[in-house]
């Protein structure tokens, strides 16, 4: 129970400040009086005895100060003084206070916003067992610039003939019309190839396959041309990650087995 006693004493010095100070004062006075008595018994005059006692005691103020330090409340005291001084300064210069507070608020807000975006887009791993093996494959123009939509036939060829990749899936942005009992609504979504939704048969990826951040996903059969893809609505998953991160950047995504890149 030693910690309890320590806590009790500290609390006492904090809350019963005057009481503790008076006690210390009385204790030191008792000490000086006893020393004076002894000096008188040794043959000194009353006045000389008292002076001698005070001399051997040293500075009472310093002793008190040292005792107070052991109370363990000196730091708290200083903190309280600092806080009060700060509050007084704020009241004296309200303009500066407002500017400082607004600056801090904007700074904290901006930092939080930027971190949230960076965290969602760059730092949070994609929902795969080995997200570092995921690559985005696209076509460029003749000078190697830009990003051209991939012809579906090319995609099928890549998937079937590229041995560097474990699995490949394609997706494209699309708008869907949703009707029901209510007003019809147009929602933005993705069409993804069937295997991307299911995950590859090897089991290296989570069974759910891709979890895309689009408002709606749909599947299409992987037939030679986009024109023949038939839309079948199964469900409307709510966005698990707003913005979709890297998976929504466009093109065809291939799951790479090695680190060689296919252009």
């Amino acid at each position, binding site marked *: 129970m030693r910690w309890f006693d320590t806590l009790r004493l500290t609390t006492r010095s904090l809350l019963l400040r005057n009481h503790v100070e008076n006690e210390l004062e009385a*204790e*030191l006075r008792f*000490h000086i009086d006893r020393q004076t008595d002894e000096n008188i018994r040794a043959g000194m005059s009353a006045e000389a005895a008292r002076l001698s006692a005070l001399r051997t005691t040293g500075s009472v103020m*310093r*002793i008190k100060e040292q005792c107070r330090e052991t109370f363990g409340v000196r730091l708290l005291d200083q903190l309280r003084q600092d806080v009060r001084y700060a509050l007084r300064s704020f009241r004296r210069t309200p303009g500066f206070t407002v500017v400082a507070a607004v600056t801090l608020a904007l700074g904290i807000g901006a930092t939080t916003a930027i971190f949230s975006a960076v965290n969602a887009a760059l730092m949070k791993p994609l929902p795969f067992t080995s997200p570092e093996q995921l690559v985005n494959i696209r076509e460029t123009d003749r000078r190697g610039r830009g990003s051209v939509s991939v012809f579906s036939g090319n995609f099928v060829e890549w998937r079937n003939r590229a041995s560097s990749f474990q699995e490949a899936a394609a997706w494209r942005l699309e708008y869907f019309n949703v009707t029901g009992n209510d007003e019809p609504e147009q929602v933005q979504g993705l069409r993804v190839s069937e295997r991307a939704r299911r995950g590859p048969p090897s089991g290296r990826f989570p069974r759910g396959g891709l979890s895309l951040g689009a408002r709606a996903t749909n599947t299409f059969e992987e037939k030679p041309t986009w024109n023949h893809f038939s839309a079948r609505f199964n469900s409307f998953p709510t966005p698990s990650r707003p913005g979709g991160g890297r998976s929504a950047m466009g093109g065809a995504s291939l799951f790479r087995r090695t680190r060689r890149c296919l252009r």
Partner: protein
Amino acid sequence: MGKPHDLVQGTLDLLILKVISLEPKHGWAIAKRIQQISQHALQVQQGSLYPALYRLEQQAWIKAEWKKTETGRLAKFYALTAAGRRQLQKELASWSRLSGAINLVMRTTE
């Protein structure tokens, strides 16, 4: 006998614990007792005594209580707690180890 020695750093706690291990004492009596037993070789300054007492109390090794002295005046008496008794044993052991070691070094005649 020369000038009374200032206490070796860290031994004051041990002396205080030892002196009040027999019976509770107030600050003045503790200083006096240490002076007597050491035949005036050790003089405890009040500036070290009271902070040490407060420190030991904070550690819960000693407990303070206001009681009447033989002259009828109220004084703050300090008594050893159970934890203080254990601490005293520990410090005694480490003190005899240290002083024994120093003696060994000092008595060497090369």
